[in-house]
């Protein structure tokens, strides 16, 4: 399996790098991936269905227990088959759907990369490899939703999808890490076999992640937006496969989660039911065929989430069967809508008319697939739903009733879909162009498969059963064409009948939905909530940034000064007790210190730039005197010379500047900051020197200067020998600063002169 996943990656890279030459062969090349997947599945299926999972492993970062570990059991195989079959179908379809253009290779590459990532998710046993592939599907989905990148709507929808599923993914990562920590293993198989206790937060985070990816309410808003993607992408990612990743994951984990928590099942149930009803209800209001299908998907995902997340074998069985059924009919319907769209130029049910007459095969496809969606007997949709209802009946009437209500909505929006696509137009109708080829036959094939399986479900029975066994240990259900007169049949036929009666009165339904909508639309919508969240984030970011990043140099300097002072002073103040004050130095220090102090205070007060320079000199020469008075002749000499040269430079610069400068007004903040810095320096010196414990390394210099370095001036020997590296750095600084000065002012001064 690893090699198949890798093949997808290589195909994606190959298509991208050959994008100039590949032209219309992008999809024919890409389809190698799904075909290989199908081949692999057929080759490996017998062993896996018999109960011998295939295990593969690729070490990545052993130090973090990070590796890719695959385990293909029956459950994984079912998804692998789905990805392979639907993927191959859609790639063939895409070859006809897109006119060759410069950006088609990017689409093909993203699709094939996505297919690889999806295979990774469903075959991973290691939690971190699930996460790796999970994030890759988020990224490819982002690229595909935003494919029509000149449309602001598409870009924004891509962002919405990426943010919601990305946030969910990170929550899930947190959950995974906690889960692995609690269960002492990263392998799903281990965690399911020995569910860790006390990991409530972990389960919750994982659930959030799964719900976000599978568009569960209230996080479902991104999915309808994602319909901005080209139709093949919508069919593949946002209906048949990627959105099932969350369902897949809860299916894997729910037996363990329900064993260890008592809230999991009620929460999953609530989420699933809410999603079913919201999705079904919204689907009834759409006028865009694709959006109608998208909300239908939301509704179906709620149902699947509920079944898979229950941890109940009978429901899990139904979930597995429905995943397959939904994958087939929903992709067929999306592709059919794509065909209608390219034949008529619209997907608006108010403007479509005569499509059935002009495109009989598309009509046949659509009706067949829609029948499967509405669970009309003799379709695989019916078979699967029957299996699900059969399980639900065992869980109580209330539950079945709610699901049946959702099924009524399903039938109703299916009817709306068919009438809308093929019934009379209410608005100005469009013409219909003839189309043919893959665009027609691929959805036909998918819909036909649903019909065949509806009549001969035994074809996939081993697959479905081994999948159910893999997650719940039991194939607690059956896959039959006609279940006989059981309660489940009553529920499903009943909901079909009620749904059909709603279809018969479309005006009444519209009136009701419109009436209710006037109330519900006033409430928050998920899209609106996302927009509001985004606006809040941007506004908050602006405000916070404006606070810290004021752009004002004095503020920055004061912040830095105070931070340093705080870091140093707080611990030092504790050591201040018992510190001895040093003595007064040589007498000559006092007048020198006075010169320095008076000059420095003068610097604060003066308004003449040249006076400031002279005063700065006073400070420097005074300090030089202090160095000299304390046994530092070299230091003193250097200070005097540097000061002299500095004054010369100041003078050279200031002759270009105005002679006076304004005195800034004193502010409390400035005074306090200055006092804090002064106090810090004083305390730091006092405490540091007082706490000296060990002798200085300088003793070595004094001892070795003459014998080893042949120099009597220890300071100079330090500079050119003991610590010559400092000096080397120092002259480098000098040289570079000189280069910098020349580059900064020479061109400007020369220009000024001429």
């Amino acid at each position, binding site marked *: 399996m690893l090699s198949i996943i890798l093949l997808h990656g290589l195909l994606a890279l190959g298509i991208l790098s050959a994008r100039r030459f590949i032209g219309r062969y992008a999809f024919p090349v890409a389809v190698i991936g799904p075909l290989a997947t199908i081949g692999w599945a057929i080759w490996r299926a017998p062993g896996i269905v018999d109960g011998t999972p295939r295990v593969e492993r690729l070490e990545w970062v052993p130090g973090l227990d990070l590796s890719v570990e695959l385990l293909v059991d029956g459950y994984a195989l079912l998804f692998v088959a789905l990805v392979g079959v639907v993927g191959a179908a859609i790639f063939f379809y895409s070859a006809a759907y897109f006119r060759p253009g410069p950006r088609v290779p990017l689409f093909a590459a993203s699709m094939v990369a996505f297919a690889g990532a999806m295979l990774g998710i469903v075959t991973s046993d290691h939690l971190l490899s699930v996460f790796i592939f999970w994030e890759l599907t988020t990224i490819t989905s982002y690229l595909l939703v935003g494919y029509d990148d000149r449309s602001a709507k598409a870009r924004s929808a891509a962002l919405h999808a990426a943010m919601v599923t990305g946030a969910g993914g990170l929550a899930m990562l947190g959950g995974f890490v906690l889960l692995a920590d609690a269960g002492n293993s990263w392998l799903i198989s281990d965690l399911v076999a020995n569910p860790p206790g006390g990991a409530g937060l972990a389960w919750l985070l994982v659930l959030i992640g799964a719900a976000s990816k599978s568009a569960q309410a209230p996080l479902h808003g991104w999915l309808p937006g994602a319909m901005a993607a080209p139709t093949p992408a919508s069919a593949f990612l946002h209906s048949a496969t990627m959105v099932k990743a969350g369902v897949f994951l809860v299916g894997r984990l729910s037996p363990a989660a329900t064993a260890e928590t008592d809230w999991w099942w009620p929460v999953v149930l609530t989420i699933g039911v809410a999603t079913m009803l919201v999705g079904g209800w919204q689907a009834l209001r759409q006028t865009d065929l694709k959006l109608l299908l998208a909300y239908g998907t939301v509704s179906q995902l709620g149902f699947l989430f509920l079944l898979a997340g229950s941890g109940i074998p009978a429901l899990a069985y139904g979930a597995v069967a429905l995943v397959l059924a939904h994958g087939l009919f929903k992709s067929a319907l999306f592709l059919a809508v794509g065909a209608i769209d390219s034949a008529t130029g619209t997907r608006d049910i108010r403007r479509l008319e005569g499509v059935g007459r002009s495109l009989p095969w598309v009509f046949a496809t659509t009706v067949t697939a829609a029948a499967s969606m509405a669970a009309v007997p003799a379709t695989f949709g019916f078979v699967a739903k029957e299996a699900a209802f059969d399980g639900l009946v065992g869980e109580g009437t209330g539950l079945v009733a709610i699901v049946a209500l959702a099924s009524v909505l399903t039938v109703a929006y299916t009817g709306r879909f068919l009438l809308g696509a093929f019934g009379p137009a209410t608005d100005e109708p469009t013409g219909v162009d003839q189309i043919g080829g893959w665009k027609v036959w691929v959805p036909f094939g998918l819909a036909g498969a649903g019909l065949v399986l509806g009549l001969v479900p035994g074809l996939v029975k081993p697959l479905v059963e081994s999948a159910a066994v893999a997650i719940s240990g039991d194939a607690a259900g059956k896959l039959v064409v006609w279940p006989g007169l059981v309660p489940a049949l009553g529920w499903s036929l009943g909901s079909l009948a009620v749904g059909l009666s709603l279809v018969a009165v479309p005006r009444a339904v519209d009136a009701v939905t419109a009436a209710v909508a006037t109330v519900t639309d006033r409430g928050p919508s998920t899209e609106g909530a996302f927009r509001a969240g985004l606006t809040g984030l941007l506004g908050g970011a602006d405000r916070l940034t404006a606070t810290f990043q004021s752009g004002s140099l004095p503020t920055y300097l004061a912040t830095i000064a105070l931070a340093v002072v705080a870091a140093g002073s707080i611990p030092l103040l504790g050591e201040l007790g018992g510190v001895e004050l040093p003595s007064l130095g040589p007498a000559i220090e006092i007048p020198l210190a006075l010169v320095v102090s008076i000059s420095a205070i003068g610097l604060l007060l003066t308004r003449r730039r040249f006076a400031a320079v002279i005063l700065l000199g006073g400070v420097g020469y005074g300090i030089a005197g202090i160095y000299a008075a304390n046994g530092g*002749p*070299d230091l003193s*000499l*250097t200070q005097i*010379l*540097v000061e*002299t*040269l500095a004054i*010369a*430079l100041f*003078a*050279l*610069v200031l*002759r270009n500047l105005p002679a006076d400068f304004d005195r800034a007004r004193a502010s409390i903040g400035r005074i306090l900051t200055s006092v804090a810095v002064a106090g810090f320096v004083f305390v730091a010196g006092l405490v540091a020197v007082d706490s000296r414990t060990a002798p200085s390394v300088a003793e070595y210099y004094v001892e070795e200067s003459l014998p080893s*370095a*042949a*120099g*009597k*001036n220890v300071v*100079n*020997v330090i*500079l*050119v*020998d003991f610590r*010559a*590296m400092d*000096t*080397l750095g120092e*002259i*480098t600084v*000098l*040289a570079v*600063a*000189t*280069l910098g*000065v*020349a580059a900064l*002012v*020479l061109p400007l*001064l*020369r220009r*000024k*002169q001429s």
Partner: protein
Amino acid sequence: MTVLRESIILRRGLRVATAPLAVFSLYLLFAGHNRPGGGFAGGLVAGVAIALAWATEGEAGTRRLVAVRSTVLLGAGLAVALVTGFAGLVWGGAFLESAVWDLSLPLFGDVKLVSAIGFDIGVYLVVVGVATGLIRSLGAGSGEGPA
């Protein structure tokens, strides 16, 4: 600045002063190892001389004292210091390791020659280059140098 250039006597006087300053700067360079001084101090004294030369004669004055581009001095000084450093690596075993030679010279008698003086010469050259470069750059465009 202008004052200095306009007063001829002062100008002459200062111009005369540059020569002894230059000599003093060399003395500081070579005395540094045993007495106060060294490459820095020496170079800085030369720098003061260059500043005086600029004040009295403008750019031409600095060119009288330092004939080359300041960048060449900077590069050469750095190179000399680095070569001393690498020489230590080659002969002594460690980068910047210095060697001491006992020499008896005809005029000075027995002298300990320390290779670190090479390093100090590098320092000196850089400092002179810095003073020259800074004064020439910041002094450029004044347009009032004597003819």
